[in-house]
């Protein structure tokens, strides 16, 4: 049943550029970006039980990595940009994680928030290096060496780049699926459920949290890179704590207790936000109201709602 849904969704996504208006297709690109980022984020949150309020930091590193590499260092290969930005995020994550995984719950949240804002402050203030509040331009990358110069920006984004990102999402999702179902993933779940007992069973809790953190940073950076190429700009607001909050929002909206929840959450959030922004200038209010509904009434998110409906349908 699940497989059918997945295949159907993939087919729809594959067909989209051919049937839908470019406007809608360009909306799907941020959805891809956030879907990838959230796959990583939820490894840390849903699977390991650590709520970070600073993961936008790694999304921003991905974005600025793409910007610096393309605008300032002339690197145009998307593969190289992805790899280098991802590694940069992992490198940055090492000290952050080493310092943060000693703590849990609210202290972890506050510490990660502080790190995120530290980076934001750095991006904002040191305008000689980072372009300050305007940020840095991101130039179009080449995909597998092909620059697609004949295509204009939109055609590139809704064409080759779209398919590339879709394939990237599928590949990274499969990788994450395997990670989550591996012995490593089982240990993470044990750590989430009862860290003390896990220790008594010989599980090195801090070390595993660290690894999960590093993987999540990599995924978030990949997402950030895609975001930045889509908009053509890397700006400091990507690192602001409210952006981290949105990552959590999306994850919980989709359903943090499920593998596919965050993916659904990313798409749902992007479309929701877009529709709301078009309908009213007070879209933040309605987004907040939706979050309240989710938290109070539907904590398992859209996936939870779907599962509940499915059970009801099967019983009837």
């Amino acid at each position: 049943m699940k497989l059918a849904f997945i295949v159907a969704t993939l087919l729809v996504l594959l067909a989209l550029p051919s049937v839908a208006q470019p406007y809608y297709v360009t909306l799907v690109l941020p959805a891809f970006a956030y879907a990838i980022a959230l796959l990583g984020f939820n490894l840390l949150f849903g699977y390991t039980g650590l709520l970070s309020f600073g993961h936008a930091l790694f999304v921003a590193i991905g974005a600025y990595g793409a910007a610096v590499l393309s605008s300032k260092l002339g690197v145009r290969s998307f593969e190289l940009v992805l790899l280098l930005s991802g590694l940069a995020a992992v490198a940055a994550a090492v000290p952050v994680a080493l310092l943060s995984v000693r703590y849990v719950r609210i202290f972890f949240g506050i510490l990660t928030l502080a790190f995120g804002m530290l980076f934001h402050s750095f991006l904002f203030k040191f305008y000689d290096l980072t372009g300050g509040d305007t940020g840095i331009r991101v130039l179009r990358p080449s995909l597998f060496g092909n620059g697609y110069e004949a295509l204009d920006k939109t055609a590139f984004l809704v064409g080759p780049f779209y398919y590339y990102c879709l394939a990237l999402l599928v590949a990274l999702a499969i990788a994450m699926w395997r990670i989550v179902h591996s012995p490593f993933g089982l240990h993470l779940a044990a750590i989430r459920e009862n860290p003390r007992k896990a220790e008594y069973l010989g599980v090195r809790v801090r070390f595993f949290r660290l690894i999960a953190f590093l993987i999540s940073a990599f995924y978030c950076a990949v997402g950030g890179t895609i975001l930045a190429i889509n908009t053509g700009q890397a700006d400091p607001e990507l690192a602001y704590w409210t952006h981290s909050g949105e990552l959590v929002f999306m994850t919980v909206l989709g359903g943090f207790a499920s593998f596919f929840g965050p993916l659904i959450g990313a798409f749902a959030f992007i479309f929701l936000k877009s529709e709301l922004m078009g309908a009213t200038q007070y879209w933040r209010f309605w987004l907040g109201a939706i979050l309240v509904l989710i938290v109070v009434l539907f904590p398992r998110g859209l996936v939870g709602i779907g599962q509940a409906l499915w059970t009801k349908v099967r019983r009837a």
Partner: protein
Amino acid sequence: MTALIATEGVSRSYGAFVALDGVSLSIAEGELVSIVGPNGAGKTTLVNVLTGLLEPTAGVVRFKGEDIAGIGPVRLARRGMARAFQLVHIFPALTVAESIAVAVISQTGRSLRLFACAKKDAALRARVREVAAIFGLEAKLDSEARLLSQGEKKLLDIASAFALSPEVILLDEPTSGVSSGDKHGIMRNVIDAAGRAGVKAIILVEHDMDLVAEYSSRIVALTAGKVLADRPPAAFFSDPEIIAAVVGKRVGKLAQGA
């Protein structure tokens, strides 16, 4: 008989309060040693020192000849000692199979395999099934731990400690919260399983003197941080002073039976 685990003159103070005072004991292969004593006698502190959780303020604690003062639970488990708690510790959302698997995987040292599929590992599943069967949990392998009865959760807690294939296992009131009819059954299962699993020694902390009398090879009684007695059951229960100090007034049945 070389000691498997031993303390020499271990003391532990918290400021002015002396929790343990010069405790020396040793446990050798094949023994089941019970630690008994009234509340506040220092049992928990002793257990924490024996399991490397607390450093003694004086004295040495050794496991297989090596100093284990304060090494912490993770390294302790790796060296071959497991501990099951008095208050049930489980992984609520994990199934029985998964809970046991965590221990098995951790013990094989292959925890960092990121891309292997845990469910498909036949050797792992066999071992998990084996451990579950010892404790009668085979039927519940796919149930989430939080849905088990209190007694079953206790068994799961002990089972996962067993799955580490430890050489020494420390059981902290393993039958508390279990109905008295089941207690002996559980103890027999555990001792039997320990034998089969290659566990070399068991340390038992218990309040139930029936169990202590029945299954211990030796009993260590603590009062006010000191060792009051360290004897096999027969000698232990035939001394009315010891019984009075440790047990209070429940002299009748034990004096007859032992």
